[in-house]
């Protein structure tokens, strides 16, 4: 009974944790960027303040916005939240860890993206359309690349359950494998594209002709915008957690661990997440944004890397049981 309660509590902590750190992670990245550009920058907690402010403000809705426009933000947020909570962060052996199937995870994110792209078209402005069409074009390359990456890792670990994959790699000696290196490269490119980061999109821009994600959410305001913003912050945490969990899972509490290991895992996770946020900030100030149609070259590159990764994994893999 106690064990069940503890397991349930750990699962709850996991869900709250990703939600709680998400604005801070974006805040760290923004702060690092500002500092590198010799600006003071907003405090790290600015993200929380912004969300609270947005939630409290009134919603200004376009006259012809439909029910879909108003309900989509909550579903997008919830789908992203659940997806983010499915990725193991501090421990792999949580209560619902079996629900974290890699294919389902990619598809859940795909559902959130499709709903956002549709919501962007609801009001019927050209900006919504431009964002939506570019987002879906990017997704047609990024989603298969990501699927191939997670399938490559699933193949190495012999399971498509994400915690199982993490457990497998914790138990492995640290070696460089070609297929894993290619997979990581592809996943990083996909993560940049999916989170609308430089060089694919610029989260700080509001220059109409270059933006993708921001163009889609242009008509949103108030609490709806807060949901969308929170969802995109969660998505960033999700991709960072995914990269951490798949490629550097060390320190994560394994299936049979108790609260002590969870604390260790929690600290390790926080440290790795902070590192990711700083690296992202440094990366964003050191490269320039690409033209929209150059992005496809980058993503096609990611797709090719992912394909090579899975090909190597297939050809080198001993037979699964």
């Amino acid at each position, binding site marked *: 009974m106690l064990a069940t309660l503890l397991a349930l509590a750990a699962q709850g902590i996991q869900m709250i944790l990703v939600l709680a750190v998400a604005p801070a992670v974006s805040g760290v990245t923004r702060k690092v960027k500002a500092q590198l550009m010799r600006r003071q920058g907003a405090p790290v907690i600015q993200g929380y303040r912004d969300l609270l402010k947005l*939630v409290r403000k009134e919603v*200004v809705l376009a006259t012809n916005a439909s029910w879909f426009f108003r309900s989509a933000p909550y579903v997008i947020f*919830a789908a992203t939240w659940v997806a983010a909570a499915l990725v193991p962060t501090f421990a792999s052996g949580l209560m619902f860890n079996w629900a974290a199937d890699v294919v389902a995870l990619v598809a859940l994110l795909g*559902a959130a993206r499709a709903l956002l792209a549709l919501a962007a078209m609801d009001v019927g402005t050209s900006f919504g359309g431009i964002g*939506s069409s570019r987002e879906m074009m990017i997704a047609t390359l990024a989603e298969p690349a990501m*699927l191939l990456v997670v399938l490559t890792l699933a193949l190495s670990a012999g399971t498509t359950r994400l915690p199982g994959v993490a457990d497998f790699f914790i138990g492995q000696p640290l070696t460089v494998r070609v297929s894993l290196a290619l997979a990581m490269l592809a996943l990083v490119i996909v993560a940049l594209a999916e989170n609308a980061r430089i060089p694919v999109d610029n989260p700080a821009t509001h220059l109409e002709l270059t933006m993708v994600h921001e163009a889609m959410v242009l008509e949103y305001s108030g609490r709806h915008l807060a949901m969308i913003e929170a969802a995109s912050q969660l998505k960033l945490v999700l991709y960072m957690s995914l990269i951490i969990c798949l490629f550097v899972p060390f320190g994560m509490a394994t299936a049979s661990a108790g609260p002590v290991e969870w604390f260790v895992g929690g600290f390790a996770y926080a440290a790795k997440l902070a590192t990711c946020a700083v690296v992202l900030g440094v990366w964003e100030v050191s490269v320039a944004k690409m033209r929209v149609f150059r992005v496809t070259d980058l993503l096609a590159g990611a797709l090719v890397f992912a394909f090579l990764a899975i090909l190597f994994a297939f050809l080198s893999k001993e037979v699964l049981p």
Partner: protein
Amino acid sequence: MTGLAGAHLPLIAAVLAAYLGVALLAALLHRRTLIFVYPACLLIALVACATDLSAVLGSVNESARLPFGLPTVGLRFHLDALAAYFGFIVNLGLVSASLYGLGFDKRTELSGRIEPFFPAFAMAMNLVLIADDAFAFLFSWELMSLTSWLLVVARHDDADNRKAGHVYLVMAAIGTVALLFAFGGLAGPAGGYAFEVIRSHRPDAVVSGLVLAAAIVGAGSKAGIMPLHAWLPLAHPAAPSHVSALMSGVMTKVAIYGLIRIVFDLLGPPVWWWSLPFILLGALTAVGGLLYAIVDQDLKRVLAYSTIENIGIIFVGIGLAVAFKATGLNAAAGVAMAAALLHALNHSIFKSLLFLGSGVVLHATGRRDFDGLGGLIHTMPRTAFCWLIGALSISALPPFNGFVSEWLLFQSVLAGPAFPEPILRFLSPMVGAMLALAAGLAAACFVRAFGIVFLGRPRSPEAMAAHEAPVEQVAALGLLTALCVLGGLFGSTIAGVLSPLLVELAGSALPGQGAGPTPFSLVAFSAERSIYDAPVIALFVALSATMTALLVHWVSARRVRRAPAWDCGFPEPSPATQYTASSFGQPLRRVYGTLLFGASEHIDMPAPGDNRPARLTVAMTDYLWCGLYAAPANAVLELSVRLNVLQFLTIRRYLVFMFVALIVLLLVTASWI
């Protein structure tokens, strides 16, 4: 279900007779009274559904033989779980199409060219499934082609429909000829045309290869496999929408049934290389169909192209099942076959839903071109909701039914490293990549379709004046929508029902209920390896969405103010400033279209001071159509013009020709012997 033991085949026979009776009666009646066709068909289809379901659950094996048909063979019928499963798919499609038909306007929407052929088409499809000898199969197959052809050309005053009918007729003829050869090869020199006799002897490698090729051409052209797909996007949209739903959602599955029957049942134990055409054609079709769909401008044609894609996915599932079974990997074969069978059911559901929904749109606005639609979510909210669920399902997004079969298929691809054949080991990651690409493209295609048709602002006066469909039609959409959701949540239950069939076809079923952590977990291979638990994920998403919404509403001021769209400060009232389907497709066309269509954009920018408007023209060529269809057709035409002179010769010339022909034939015969 024991009460029905032995009674399934007679019941199905009664269903067939009832369909035929309705068709004959409808042929005698006048316009208004024709409405009786739909309640009658609905009733018959419900009975048929129940019978088929009971037959699947009971794994029946019932045969009957009638004393006419081929001499010594007779006319044989047989009902087993495979036929009953596909029968269920067919009759489920008929239930929804008939329900939709109930909503037709008695005075204006009925026609003696459509209603009598609807039950006849229904009967023909059911007949194919229970045929148990080559003659009965081909006869009912041809009946199915002809009745559907009559429905395609029902509105023959439109030149496009006539062209569609022409192409369909030619392709159907080619397909039937190919199937004729396939059954010839199966029957062997002894000519045993009963399926029972065919099963008892095994053709050698060469013959089995030829039979396989002929079967893929014959059944594949009906299913819409590339490059034999060209008739589909012409004919499916040309028919009335409820018939389009049947042709796209259901008739293609009858073709899939034919292939499964031939490959898994009649042709004997599978050999690994049989899987190659299925896997290769399937993967190319899955991506190719969508590439056509994302650049097309017609709602119903986009759906037809997407059918091609889904048939590709089913083909890949069948191919992988053949490959796994042939190499002794039965567990993986079970997963692949489950993916193929479930996708056949799922596709029939959401494709019927989308076609019927498009029928509602077509009726309400009179248009099916993307450039004349938009904003229908305001005037037709129920249809929009159902179409949205259908679009999400067909894009293989959780928690809807399309994702269940997609998930199973990816799981079976992951078993690929176990193949002893290097080619298959190399092919499976490639198939995985193609399927992943198809999944991404499908989402883009249906975001475009739903977004342009239902969201935004109306692009034409007709779209602005649209109205919601009659209650019967909304009920048909609602039924299918519910099935999309239920099929997505309880995919494991359906897979459990299919277990005996999977064991029979692939040698192994999915791990049953109890293998996973909850009763509704879908488990592939083992619980340690892969679990997809749709109800748990859906519950999590639903709970967190509701909780968040409540919490946010509690914190927030709840105030909502309506104002003109922001649009970066310059809102423009004209709906022409919205993104159109072609502008939405432009990035995709630029990325993917250059390869398949040779798409090129030409910008005509007038010099400064010139008053001409600037123009953007896009040129695209359908290479497949030009190379494989137009070129041979032109060659035949050219040849017949050349040979036309032979029609106007004198009698002496003809006599000389006959004499020469006689000599040549005699020489050939002499040298042959």
